[in-house]
Structures are given as C-alpha cells and as structure tokens.
C-alpha cells in the first residue's frame, strides 16, 4: 500500500496550487458570484493552456491522457480555491462520459474543443422531482422519423446558462426500466424549443431550470445506445459524487487552515483564543473530520480510476464527506465568533458552497441508504 502521491502527481498538485494562488484570488471568486456567466474566459483559457481542461481526455483527442485519479488531485485544489466556472460540469462529467460512451465522430468533434477551451458542456439529469433515482425522470424523448422530440423540465442543471452542449437524460420508453428505458442526447444550446432560466441558490452557483418544448434532436446526437442511457446517468452520478468529495476535501482543509490561523491570532482575556481548551477541542474535531474525509474520498476515486467495483466506497465517501464538511464549516464559524458570520469574511464562501456540494449527486441520506442496501440490510 502507498497512500502518497507519485512525483508526477506531486508536481500537478504543487503547480495547481501555485497557479491558482495567482490566477484565482478570492476577489475573483466573489466577483463571479455576482457575474451572470460565473467565470472569466481568461481563467478558462489559462486552464486550457495548462492542459487541465483536457487532463483526462485521451491524447488522440487533444488531451493529456491522465487518469480520473489525477484529475481528482487537481480537484482538491480547485475546491480549495473555490475556482469559479464550469470545470466540474465540462471536464469531470461531460468529457469523461463522452470519452467513455461517444462515437468516434462525436469524440473527435467535441473532445478537442473541450481540451482547448472552446466548448463548455454540462449534464442534465435532475428534474423537479429533485432526485437522482431513475424514477424521477419524466422528460420524454419520442421518436419522430430520424429525430427524437424532447418534452419536459430539467432542474438544478449546473452551468446550463453558459453551456454550448447539454447532455440530457431522457425517457425513451414509457414502460422501460433502468436497463432499457432511458437515452442520453447531446443537445446543442441553439436548438429551438429550450428555455433556460437561472436559479437563485445558496451558493450563488450557476444552476438553471431548462424547459424543453418539442425540442427536436437528430438520432446522430444520441450518446451511447438508445435505451441504455441510465448506465450513463449512473456513471455521471458515480463520477460526480466521488469527485465532489475531493473538491469538498480541498474546501474543508482550507476552512480548517483558516480557523487555526485565526484562533492563533485572535486574543481575548489576554491570550489567543486558541489557548482555550474549548477552542482546541473544536479545532481537533475539525482536523479529525478533515482527516476522515481525505482517505475515504481518495479511496472511492482510486477504485473508479482502477476500474474496480466502487459503489459502496463512493456512497460511504459521499455520506461521510457531506456531513463532515458541513460540521467543519459550522465549527469554523463557531470558533471565529461574529466576524465569521459576515459576508465580508471569506468563511461564508465555503459554508454556502459546502451546502450545495452536500446536495449534489445525492446527500448523506441518499448515500447512507445505498450503504445500507450494500450491507444487505
């Protein structure tokens, strides 16, 4: 067993931290919360040049051909720096499943554009039913000649406002089940019949509602096989939930660091508050939570990356990290006193995102249930 990073991975981690310290100051994070698009082309192009956008895309499609695990290393840093923009939707989710399920022509058309920063993509699974279970999908795609016609509503779609293509999970067989009833479509943003409305959210992230009214999609734009779309959706949820854990780990680690810095510095009763046992116990509990996050999260990602069965590990990680990160933020606030409750202080940027991340790809209740099922209880 070796739980360290190898040389290449260390290099990736260190250079990511250096770059983001320069290119992603907290002022940018704050500005992007207010910004409609939520990212700058400058940072995006920069990430393309660094090879990050194509990190796990095969070399023949203009990427770096690195693994999902390597991508995770980068995510720990983007989580730490709260990097704004569609990195998760485009790179972690879309490019991964396009690589796995795309036809040769889809891949050679789309992947190089993602790698060089010319195309933003996202995945639309959830609907007003607000669940990641297949029975929550009501959006239908009905065959009409060589086209499919999509009708329904997607909700909580990240970065839909800015995406060039949206990978939409639709029901293609009313009586079908997870093995044959769903299909994924690659939908161009300019297709007529789509209405995208931004949502106001706790994290000021860029989520949206998309209403589909008779949106006609050519059968060439089916991703994977007709009827086999739930496999893809499930894959997105697995990749998404495990990768979210790493992103959250990066954030939690930073919250711990901020809090320790603060309690060393803040003086009350003539001594640093970090010298009070109550605060020391708070910090110890935070450190314990962060340590717990690190290895369950990397374990899940590692299993996926190695192609091993990973369902149980993914759900253990997402259940634990979702709760732990929220606890870390809460204790962080408690240890900061009133200053941490202000909008001006950076802690709240993490707390609000922690909630959104907790909810994404299944919260702790959802994943705890899967763990229970995996245990056979």
């Amino acid at each position, binding site marked *: 067993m070796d739980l360290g990073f190898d040389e290449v991975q260390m290099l990736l981690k260190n250079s990511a931290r250096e770059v983001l310290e320069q290119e992603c100051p907290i002022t940018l994070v704050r500005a992007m919360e207010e910004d409609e698009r939520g990212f700058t082309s400058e940072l995006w192009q920069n990430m393309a040049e660094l090879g990050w956008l194509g990190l796990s895309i095969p070399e023949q499609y203009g990427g770096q051909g690195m693994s999902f695990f390597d991508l995770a290393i980068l995510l720990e840093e983007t989580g730490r720096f709260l990097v704004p923009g569609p990195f998760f939707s485009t790179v972690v989710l879309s490019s991964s499943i396009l690589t796995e399920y795309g036809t040769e022509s889809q891949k050679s058309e789309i992947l190089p554009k993602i790698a060089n920063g010319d195309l933003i993509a996202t995945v639309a699974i959830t609907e007003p039913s607000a*669940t990641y279970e297949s029975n929550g999908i009501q959006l239908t795609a009905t065959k009409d000649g060589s086209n499919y016609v999509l009708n329904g509503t997607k909700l909580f779609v990240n970065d839909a406002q800015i995406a060039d293509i949206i990978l939409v999970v639709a029901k293609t067989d009313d009586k079908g089940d997870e093995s044959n009833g769903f299909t994924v479509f690659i939908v161009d943003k300019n297709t007529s019949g789509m209405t995208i409305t931004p949502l106001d959210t706790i994290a000021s992230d860029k989520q949206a509602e998309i209403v589909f009214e008779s949106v006609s999609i050519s059968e060439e734009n089916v991703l994977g096989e007709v009827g086999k779309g739930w496999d893809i959706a499930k894959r997105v949820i697995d990749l998404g939930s495990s990768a979210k854990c790493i992103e959250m780990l990066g954030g939690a680690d930073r919250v711990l660091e901020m809090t320790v810095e603060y309690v060393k510095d803040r003086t009350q009763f003539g001594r640093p508050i970090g010298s009070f046992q109550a605060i020391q116990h708070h910090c110890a509990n935070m450190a314990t939570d962060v340590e717990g996050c690190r290895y369950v999260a990397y374990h899940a990602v590692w299993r996926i990356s190695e192609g091993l069965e990973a369902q149980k590990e993914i759900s253990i990680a997402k259940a634990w990290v979702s709760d732990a990160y929220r606890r870390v933020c809460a204790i962080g606030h408690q240890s900061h006193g009133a200053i941490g409750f202000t909008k001006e202080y950076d802690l709240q940027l993490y707390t609000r995102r922690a909630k959104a991340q907790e909810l994404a790809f299944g919260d702790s209740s959802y994943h705890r249930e899967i763990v229970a099922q995996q245990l056979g209880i």
Partner: protein
Amino acid sequence: MDFKFSTEEETFQNDVNGFLKQELPSDWTGETAYASSDDGWNFNLKMKKKLAEKGWLTLGWPKEYGGMEASIMSQVLFNEQMAYNRAPGIDIWGIKMLAPTLMVHGTEEQKQRFLPPVANGEVQWCQGYSEPGSGSDLASLQTRAEVDGDEYVVNGTKIWTSNGHRADWIILLARTDTDAPKHRGITMLLVDMKTPGISVNPIVNMAGMHEFNQVFFDNVRVPKRNLVGEENRGWYVGATLLDFERSGVQYSAEARRTIDDLVGFIKDNPSSNFDLSGREHLRNRLADMAIETEVSRMISYNIGFMQSQGFVPNKEASICKSFSTEMEQRVAETGMHILGLYGQLTSDSKWAPLRGRIERTFLRHHSATLASGTSEIQRNIIATRGLGLPRA
C-alpha cells in the same frame, strides 16, 4: 408538581394568540430579519405601537412605571407566542435591557425621560457593548469617555451593533479609567444616535442581510446627566438584567414553528419527494427534533418557574442558551435535509419551498450560538459558576 397553567394565564395566552392572528397578514410567514428592509421595519414600528396600546410592551414592568406587573409565567407565555408567530414589534434593548437598568440605577429624571417613550413604542434602542477587540472578553473594551466640563467626550468604535442603523439611542459601555482593573474603569452612558461625531457603517451578514453595524464615535459629546449609575461602575450596572423573565423560551418556540412549517409542508405535498414515508432516517431525525424542542421548552418553563419563586437562574439560563441555540441549528439543518436539492433555493426563486425560509434560517442560525454569549462561554459559566469548577 403541576404543569398546568392557571386559567388566567391560559386566557391571556389565547388573547395574545387572537391578537396576533388578527394583526399579522394571513400569509405572514414572518420576517425575523425585519431590520434589513424598510418594509419590514415599518411593519415592526406599526406592531410596536399596537403592542404598546395593549400594554404588552411593558407587561413585566412594575405599575409605578406604567407596567402591568404581570407574572413571570405570563411573560413567558407572551414571549413564546410572539416568537412562535415570528411577530415583530419588541425592542428588546429598550424594554428588557435599558428599562430594568434604569429602574434600579437611574435617576428620577432619567426614568421620567427615558421610560415613557420605550413603553409607548416611540423609540428604538441598540446595545453598544462589543468592540472589534472585545467580544467574549467584553471587560477589555477600549472605547474612551473622558470628562470635559459637564460632558463626556467619547472616542472609539463599537461593532455588531444590531439595529444600529435603525436606533434612536444607544446603551454605551465606555472606559473612563484606564488605570483601574479592567472591570472597574467602565461607565454606562446613554447616547443619542443623532449626536454629531457618530457614524454607522453597515455590515452585511452571510445570509446577505443588513442587521448589524459598526458604530464609530469621533469626539462625541454626551451630557453627564446621561450617565447611568456611578462612573466606573458601568460593568456592574450593565449586569443588571435580572428583573424580567430570562427563560429563553423563544428558542424552542422558533424551533417548534420551523418544525410545524416543515410538517405542514410535507403534508401539503403528499407523494412528492418531500414525502417521508419510507425514509426512516429523515423521519427519525425530524422526530428527534420535535423531542429536543420539547426538552428545551421544559428547561425554559422551569427557569420561568424558578424566577416566579424568587430564585435567580444562573447556570440554568446558560444551559438553556447553549442547548437551545445548538438545537435550533440542528432543526434548520434537518429542514435542509428534508428539502433536499430544493433546500438550496433562495427566497427569490419560484421553486423555493416555504419561500426559502429554511435556507435563510440555516444561514442565519450560524450566529445563534455566538450572539449574547457564545456556547463556549455558556459552558464556562455552567462549569465554574454552576458546578464550582476552577476557572481557566
């Protein structure tokens, strides 16, 4: 032991309830952050006037100051109803902080001048205690008040001043003797917020609301007749808050309302994804919250009972504050869990359940365990004053 309220108390509770039903808009979901919008504030002022007419602002005040001298238990019930309904209209700094202090330490002239406007709901007070360098260690405060003829000249800054941007007057603690031990050089002054030299800077909290402020004092001249009690005795004057109910019943009332809202919402949306049947984990969690809320409520009732028997609750109030505020956070968190992905939507969103109230409560309650004495300080009090353990 007898847990029943007297008939009188029950009648009063019904009166309060009836009044609130009548005065609050039918779709009132409550705006506890009323200081952050003009509409909210104006409604608060209107309610304050009406409560004054009823005599309920001064429910606990002695008759000689125009109060109703109501029993402690009636005060508990009143505060419980107000909190459950999220009704605005109470200036807690004027009514619960300034008034009892003046009744004990004020001059006759001060009582005449300051108490009637509070009783009539005509002024708003705020509390200028905390400073950037002095939070839990309040006695280390640095704002200076120096004598110059008939006046004090105040320089320094106060922070986290709730309603500072709405207040007419501020209860100020300032240092008048820099050589004395820290508790012995502090003086309480009543300061008109319109005095030249005062400026108020908004601080927006993490829920995006403007409720507290930083207040700056630049050579602010305060007449000596606005000194409360003796010079340099302000620390002890400031500690005179014990006359009225301190049950902390508002915490369980607020939490109970949140739980009731959630339960109502779940029932209104059967066989939706808010339906908890088959979701044992969340059902248990919500049930736990209902249980904890009842525990908190009983702790509060006991504090009210102790006070009504002439005892001064001490560790009991600290136990109530730390347990109940932490419980409120758990309740909000549970609500967020139940709402799932919808929980993250803010009040502006057409999709937001309960008009985004749970989301806002979740964010705002991060401060519950900080304001008016942090959980850690409460536990220190429980351990030292309550259990007799040695001080750190």
